[in-house]
């Protein structure tokens, strides 16, 4: 038994060590960096400046716009993907013909990288091509708009592209969840004389809660970390008046274009904290569930 444990330990040790150094070690290093004055390639004397970089950020117009954009993005992207995904899953699960074909079609966008879909959406939502031309041809000219080039739309256009890409993924999650619901429950509900709506409301929906939670976590952390899609659609400047800008993009510009490493570190740490608020409750919840099962 003891030898068995030793082998197990030896097998995980390398990856644990690498994670400690390259994940937690660098999180620690970045945290330290964000509390110093290292805001140039070389600073004559690196010293501890407390929360100065953080305070500066919260007085920075661009960063405040970024936070607002993140919120708007999450509020559109998460519910949008959930609703479309659930609708798709329910339709596919209703015994439709060629289910496999539709499943593949819906799931396909997820297999592409954000950069690829971003370039496509960049052209679809270009004010003088793509969707606007299509609207014109269909006599729907009133739907024409400036998409990501219109400062009042900005991040909402990016959210649209993101929903398109990830609703297929939520659909797959829900589909798996639906298939896992035991037939007996529906039979029991049928015996009780439940209506179609009651089937959904009292059987399907409650049993899909764990799936929904997982999906919210995955989609939530994507909306906090989103970077590549914004760059591909709106460009590295984050659109006019930062209307499509997000913290991750600002972090890149601050660190690698402006050489303000400590400031960039502060943005990363704020992003990390936001993701933690989302992930840690979920982890503790699922660990507790595992323990009770």
């Amino acid at each position, binding site marked *: 038994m003891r030898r068995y444990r030793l082998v197990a330990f030896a097998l995980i040790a390398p990856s644990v060590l690498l994670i400690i150094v390259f994940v937690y070690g660098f999180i620690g290093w970045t945290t330290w960096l964000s509390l110093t004055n290292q805001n140039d390639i070389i600073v004559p004397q690196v010293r501890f400046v407390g929360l100065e970089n953080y305070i500066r950020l919260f007085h920075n117009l661009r960063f405040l716009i970024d936070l607002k954009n993140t919120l708007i993005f999450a509020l559109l992207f998460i519910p949008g993907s959930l609703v479309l995904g659930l609708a798709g899953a329910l339709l596919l699960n209703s015994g439709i013909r060629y289910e496999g074909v539709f499943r593949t079609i819906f799931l396909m966008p997820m297999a592409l990288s954000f950069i690829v879909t971003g370039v496509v959406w960049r052209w679809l939502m270009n004010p003088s091509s793509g969707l606007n031309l299509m609207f014109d041809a269909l006599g729907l000219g009133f739907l024409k708009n*400036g998409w990501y080039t219109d400062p009042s739309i900005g991040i909402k256009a990016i959210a649209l592209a993101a929903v398109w890409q990830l609703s297929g993924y939520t659909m797959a999650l829900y589909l798996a969840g639906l298939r896992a619901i035991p037939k007996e429950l529906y039979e029991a509900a049928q015996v009780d004389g439940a209506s179609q709506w009651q089937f959904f409301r009292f059987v399907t929906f409650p049993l899909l809660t764990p799936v929904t939670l997982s999906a919210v976590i995955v989609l939530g952390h994507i909306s906090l970390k989103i970077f590549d899609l914004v760059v591909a659609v709106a*460009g590295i400047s984050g659109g006019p008046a930062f209307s499509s800008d997000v913290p991750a993009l600002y972090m890149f510009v601050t660190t690698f*274009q402006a050489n303000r490493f400590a400031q960039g570190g502060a943005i990363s740490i704020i992003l990390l904290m936001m993701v933690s608020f989302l992930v840690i409750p979920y982890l503790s919840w699922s660990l507790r569930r595992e323990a009770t099962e």
Partner: protein
Amino acid sequence: MRKRQWVKGMALALAFMGLALGQTGKLEIFSWWTTGGEAAGLLKLFDIYKARHPGVKIINATVAGGAGSNAKAVLKTRMLGGDPPDSFQVHMGHELIDTWVTTGFMEPLDDLYQKNGWDKVFPKGVLELLKWNGHYWSVPANIHRANVLWYNKAIFEKYGLTPPKTYDEFFAIAEKLKKEGIIPLALGDNGIWASTHVFETVLIGVLGPEGYKGLWNGTTDWRGEGVRKALETFAKMLNYVNADHAARSWDQANDLIIQGKAAMYIHGDWANADFLAKGFDGYGWAPAPGNVGIYDALSDTFGLPKKAPDPQEARWWLELLGSKEGQEAFNPLKGSICARTDCDASLFNPYLQWAMKQWQTDTIVPSLAHGAAAKESWVAAVNDVMSLFVTSRNVAQAQEMLAQACVDAGVCKQ
């Protein structure tokens, strides 16, 4: 048949091995010259280098991306990680000095300047920008001009217009064109630097060369009348640009001139190379409004990092770059003029010949958007201000943010 192919393959392999053995050194050149004329110019330089130093193997380390935004990020990780290339492309002025020279990453090149007599063939305005602490730190390969007004000749002829010399003339023309349904001024600021670029020409036009240069050393007041007037002028110009400017890149804005949809375009002279590459010759040029007699310059230079693995090969490269032969081979392809003042004008196209003449007589000022006038963090801050200003046109807010950026850069006092 099979056997003969095998023999051929062996012979080839042996030939390559022979080549590899014959090589005595290597040279790694880092740049963002990946497309069109600039890549052609770079390869031409490599050809000359190989003829001069046959044994050296050249590694062409390029990172694609406009204005070097991606390349600079890669370079930073390499330099800070202690793995520099032998020589790298960097904009003349503060982008080089404040990022790599004051921080002690570069080798001074005074011996090369002396040996090649460069302090006599490069103009004074350029030498000033290359110098820091009494030493030279890089060799300029070329000079681009930023403050050029490009215009569609057919439109100007049709409405009997001449290129505007002042802002009043510019606005009169713009108003007239707008009424005719033509976009007066093309803009493609999907990369916001293109707006910073136009604003920079307005700062020059309103403040004059000395006032503009003073912005970067703290002698011109960012909170003063001049900057306010420049912002107001720029805001007014923005009334005349194409509505989809945020969707277009600089070259897509240039397309508006080619298609005859827009009449004027204030941009750097790489637009000239773009016109030629797209087979369009119906364009004219003039200094940007208010910029007559002023040459807003930027330059791609190459330097020698302290930890360069092959310093001798790098020095040969720099000597080639600064030589008459090198500059005359590179610049006609790249679409820029020589930094040297003794290049043969007949090798260049008409625009470049015009620019070469202006280069001799004009007052030279450093470009902001292209790294010559201010350090990178300052340029990034101005870009942020422009990103907001192009949409909001809020002069007071922009002026306050610009003044703060100067304080943050350590040049202005609170």
